[in-house]
Structure formats: C-alpha cells, structure tokens
C-alpha cells in the first residue's frame, strides 16, 4: 500500500464530528471532507483569505487599509509566507504522509492567521494544527495563532515542549475509520498515487 495522505484539516474535521458538543451535521461534514468533495467557498472563507492576503501584502512591504492586518503584518516582518511541508510517519504499522502549509514561518516560530466570527481564549488549545505543524517542522519551537474577530486582534501561543505528539491523534483516527467501516473510503480517496 502507498502512503496515506493526512492533513490537520482532516483530523480537525474528524475530531469536530466526534465531539459531543458539535452540531448534528458535523458528522456529515466530516464524510464530505473524507470523500474529498470540494469545500463550498463561503463568505467567511473568502474573508479569511482576504485578511491573510492583506497581512502578506504588509509583510512584502506594501500597505493595507486594514489596520488589523497591518498590525499582524508588521509583527511578521521578514517572515516567509506559505511554506508547504510534508513528512512521512509510521503509525499503526502504516505509512502516513503528513502534509501542511504554514501561513508564515520566521526564525523558529510558525504563525497561522485565523479570521473568526467569535473568539474566546483557548479556542485552539485542542487543535491538531500545532501538534501537526511541530511534527512537520522539527526546527520550530513555538506556534502562534494570530486571531482576528472583526474588532480585535488576539494571539494564542503554544510551545513544542507543552504540545502532545501528533501520532496518537492519527492512531485514534485510524481506529475510528476501521470501527466505522470508513477505512476503505479513506484509502480510496487519500492514498497517494
């Protein structure tokens, strides 16, 4: 069997689907992602991209009319945007190709911008993103979420030393797929050619 492609987004979708507090349609949304159906381009996603583009514009030496993007852009002066990373992991006897794109990296720190409707501190505490990205970039020791909710900018930071490895998440995900007879679908859609 070839390597199985795995992303933080897929793991996040699975975790959201199995969270007892998630809405009823969370499981359907997970199946949608598992089947690699195209994600609908919602206004919220468009706004997220616009915000990130504005931040990148400031990093590149340009100016933005968005003061919040400007604040983050200045903070990220000199950072490298859109760094694609991948790493092969051996979990549960299978080879997984963990893939991710870091919004920005600079001098040992990974940054990810989040444009959200509502924010409360700790929103990303259980996220699989920083565990996954620490695995993808072993030289990074800090992960900072740069969050904007339309009114304020926030930051949440996580240190490598405080972060659990990503492998157990993948292991649990694999067990879930097998138990729910979804592994064949996953394999068909995510196995690398």
């Amino acid at each position, binding site marked *: 069997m070839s390597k199985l492609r795995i992303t933080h987004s897929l793991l996040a979708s699975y975790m959201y689907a199995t969270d007892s507090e998630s809405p009823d349609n969370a499981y359907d949304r997970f199946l949608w992602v598992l089947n690699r159906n195209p994600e609908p381009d919602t206004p919220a996603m468009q706004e997220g991209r616009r915000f990130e583009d504005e931040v990148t514009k400031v990093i590149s030496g340009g100016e933005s009319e968005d003061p919040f993007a400007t604040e983050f852009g200045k903070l990220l002066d000199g950072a*490298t945007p859109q*760094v694609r990373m991948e790493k092969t992991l051996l979990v549960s006897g299978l080879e997984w190709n963990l893939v991710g794109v870091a919004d920005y990296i*600079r001098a040992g720190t990974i940054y990810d911008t989040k444009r959200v409707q509502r924010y*409360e501190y700790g929103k990303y505490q259980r996220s699989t993103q920083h565990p996954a990205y620490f695995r993808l970039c072993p*030289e990074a020791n800090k992960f900072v979420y740069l969050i904007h909710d339309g009114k304020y900018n926030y*930051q949440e930071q996580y240190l490598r030393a405080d972060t659990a490895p990503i492998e157990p998440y993948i292991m649990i995900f694999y067990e879930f797929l097998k138990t729910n007879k979804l592994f064949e679908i996953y394999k068909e859609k995510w196995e690398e050619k």
Partner: protein
Amino acid sequence: MAIKKNTELKFNDKAFTIVLAGPPGVGKTTLALSAPKPLLIDFDKGIARVRAEHRQLTAEEDSYDEFLADLESDEYKECETIILDTGGSLVQLMQPWARANDQKAARDGRAMFGVIKSEFLRLTAQLRNDGKNVVIIFHTTEVQKGDTVMTRLSCEGSVKDIVWTPADLGGTISIRGKKRIINFSPTEESFGKGCYGIRGEIEIPELAAGTPNKFLSDLFDKARANIAKEQAEFGSMKMIYDETLAQGSAIIGAIKDAESATAAVAKLGNLNHALTSKAELSGKLQTKVKELGLKWDKTVSAYVKA
C-alpha cells in the same frame, strides 16, 4: 535611537505581566504579593484575608476614577509591581465609568463592554509602559465541555480573552493533597502560558511564619536569567540563520530555468542551516519554481517544465 541589534538587547530590568488564576481561597493574593515591591489594588476588598505579615501597600478602590487617580500617586511611581485583584472586579468597577464616559455605552450593554475592553488594553499598556510588573488575578469558574471540566477565568465581557495576549506568563493555581501547584502550561482542563523557560507545574512552597514571601520575585529573576541565556544561544543561531537566509535567497533569486532550479536544490541543502532556515528557504524555492512554471519530476530527480 530605539532600534537595537539582537546582540545589543538587554533584559536585566525586564518587567513581566502575569495572569494568576484559581478558585477562591487558594492563596492567589498572597502569591501575587510575593512579586517585587508590590502595590495591591484591592478591587475585591480581600486584603484582610491575607496573613498580616504578608500584607503590603494596598489601595482599596471604590471607583475606577479613584483608581486612575491613584496611578498619579508617589506610591504608584515607587512600586515595582502593580497587582490588579481581581480582573473580574476591575471590569465591574469599569462599568459605571464606561457608562458615564461613553454615550453609546450608557445605552447599550454590548457597547459598554467594548469600551471596557479598549480601556483595559489601554490601562495594562500604560502599566507596562511605566515599567511595572503587572499581576492580574482572576477567580475561576468551571465549565463542563463534553467529558472534561474546564477552568475558565471568571470575568464579564471579553477581557478574559484579551488578557492573555499581552501576558508574558499565566498560571492556574490548584491544590493537590496538601500541595499548592501553579501550572504555566495549557492542559485539557485549564489555560496556562509559559515563556522564558517557565513552563509546566511548579509547586508553591508552604509559607511558614517568618518565611519571606518571594515566589514571584524569584520566578521573575529566573525568567530574566533564562532570557539572557536564551539570548546568548539564540543570538548566535540567529546570526547563522540570517546569513543562511541571505545566501539561500540569493541562490533562489538566481534561478532562471529548470536546470538552475535543480542545481539550487543541492546548493540550498549544503548551506549551514539554523532555526527554521531550511523550511523557509524551501518555501521560497516552491514559490519561485511555481512562478517559473516548473515542477519536480521524481523519476529524473530534477525540475522540468510543468
């Protein structure tokens, strides 16, 4: 000139902002008073609960205006640490102030909390700019999330969310058996913020009669020492990182076609990498080859026209 080179930065007198959270009665105020030369702003009127030998200079505020006036006092100017006890009570005290000072806040509760949020950010920035250590105490409440009971800061509005961003350190205090523990790392149950080598669980020593109360003073000293050590280590790594990034960017900048792109891969690999220079140069290379319409062909281990 305000701009300094990495190697010129000094942290001997660095002040810290720290969030202390925990349930009532766990000893948050006493712990806060262990910071250097403190001025306790007692919004909670709880100083009487602190053992007499540990009490320090205290301001009991009845209004937010009164507190702002106290920030002009000699006592404030001479203190090294200001303790806001508690953040939740400060927000309550800010409410009549916000309504009196903002017409929209007087009519609309959401607008009022917006004004409070802005004022809280301004206030804490002022305290930091004045060179003070800032200790912000919060009571905690428990919230059930799925199977987990999570600890949250007890505070109206969204100050509880913004307070962590400018904080250097944040810890939740709990009692385990007879031990008091402060945890500076985030867990499933509670928040924490570590920095400067301060992380994880630290036991708060028992304060027997006559024992000096200096836990936070020692912690700040340790953090300063760690910063200096890290600065020395990071400084040399950063120099290599900067040099490598410059060399790598020049290599990538010289790429014109598939052949030079393939040659660049080996050159980039041979550089003396430090920190995240390898990943960053890889990102820059990806951008460049995409611009040139090239793709990596595994079969020949070379870039080819896409």
